[in-house]
């Protein structure tokens, strides 16, 4: 067992983990944060995407011990005080999901994209979502939602 200490959605956790525990399983099974989905388990689908120190990563391809000392954000950490994050609002309004299985990963990857590029083009969004697969939507509404969230976030940033 290895002792780790990490912040998840702003809450500090200490835990003893087997080194082979993957971060996705630690989040789901130890912390009960089942919003992070496991789709393929082969690093392809992106359903398990979380933010590690603000950057999008596939949590099925990181060990929990590698997140020692880090700041992790999962889909459960997006809303603040019951108010949806602009990306959640935009997926809702633009119908960016059907079955919803890929959605937590899409949301986290999108937050990652917008933190690196607040004003992406349609093509840039498609390219940056390469690591996230959706079997339902055909991606069009996901791209529309990310464009809308980007605009919303830019205008709130300008207003504040």
């Amino acid at each position: 067992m290895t002792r780790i200490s990490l912040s998840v959605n702003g809450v500090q956790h200490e835990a003893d983990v087997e080194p082979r525990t993957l971060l996705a399983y630690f989040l789901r099974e130890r912390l009960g944060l089942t919003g992070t989905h496991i789709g393929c388990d082969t690093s392809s689908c992106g359903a398990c995407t979380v933010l590690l120190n603000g950057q999008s990563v596939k949590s099925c391809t990181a060990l929990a011990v590698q997140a020692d000392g880090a700041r992790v954000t999962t889909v459960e950490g997006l809303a603040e005080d019951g108010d949806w994050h602009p990306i959640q609002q935009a997926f809702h309004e633009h119908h960016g999901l059907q079955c919803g299985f890929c959605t937590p990963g899409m949301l986290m990857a999108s937050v990652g994209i917008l933190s690196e590029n607040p004003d992406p083009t349609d093509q840039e969004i498609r390219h940056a979502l390469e690591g996230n697969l959706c079997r339902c939507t055909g991606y069009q509404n996901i791209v529309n939602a990310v464009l809308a969230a980007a605009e919303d976030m830019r205008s709130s940033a300008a207003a504040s």
Partner: protein
Amino acid sequence: MIPAPFEYERATSVAHALELMAQGGEDARLLAGGHSLLPLMRLRLARPTLLVDIGGLDDLKYVSGNGDAIEIGALTTHHEIADSHELGEACPLLTTTAAQIGDPQVRHRGTIGGSVAHADPASDLPTALLAMDAEFVIEAVGGSRSVAAADFFEGPFMSALGDGEILTSIRVPVSGASGVYRKFNRRAQDWAIVGVAALIGTDGGAISSAAIGLTNMGGTPLRAEAVEASLVGVSGADEVAAAAAQVADIGMPPGDEQASAEYRLHLASVLIRRAVGDVLT
């Protein structure tokens, strides 16, 4: 799919990592970004008994230049390379190559050192580094040495790195030539079926120097030497195409379920033509 059990140690310095690797014996493995090793461990194609995690060695994460050469710390991520303004100015071939690896999530974790050490013939950065005549700095218990890219890659997943040795940095000469990396795959995010790294110097509209690296055309990254020789002095599209066709000089590439050997040769000559065309236009 969970990896088989292993012991885990977090290295606090390069010297500490070398010591842990020496104690761990031949089944100990270094862990950098984990984006080649963990997928193999989950499939249990790799079963190390000890992982020595060097991911926290922040002093191996840097880009520093002195005008003639740029040095990149082994733990610099693909994202940091793609995003580096300094590298973009000095070695555009490296930044454009890094930007085409996998997807953003992969680029946030994967490191240049891990990519080189893993020596996967389908990897992108090793080809670009071979075309740029990079040097790899290796630390061992007895001291350090430097190996040229041309001597480093020995076969699929085989390199000049010995057991327990650590690649600490990569040195790239700054040439002023333009760089383009072109890869062909069938689906977004896939590895290259074939990739081409072109480093092209021009003088008055004609090619004055050419280095062409090839990904996934053999067991190691390769240089297309006949193409390089034919490109010098050339300026027109037809001549570029004729030079690109000389890629057949490397011999037969591997054929597999993704592409036959003939198709790979065809792709390589088309990608060379396009990559060089990008520079000339």
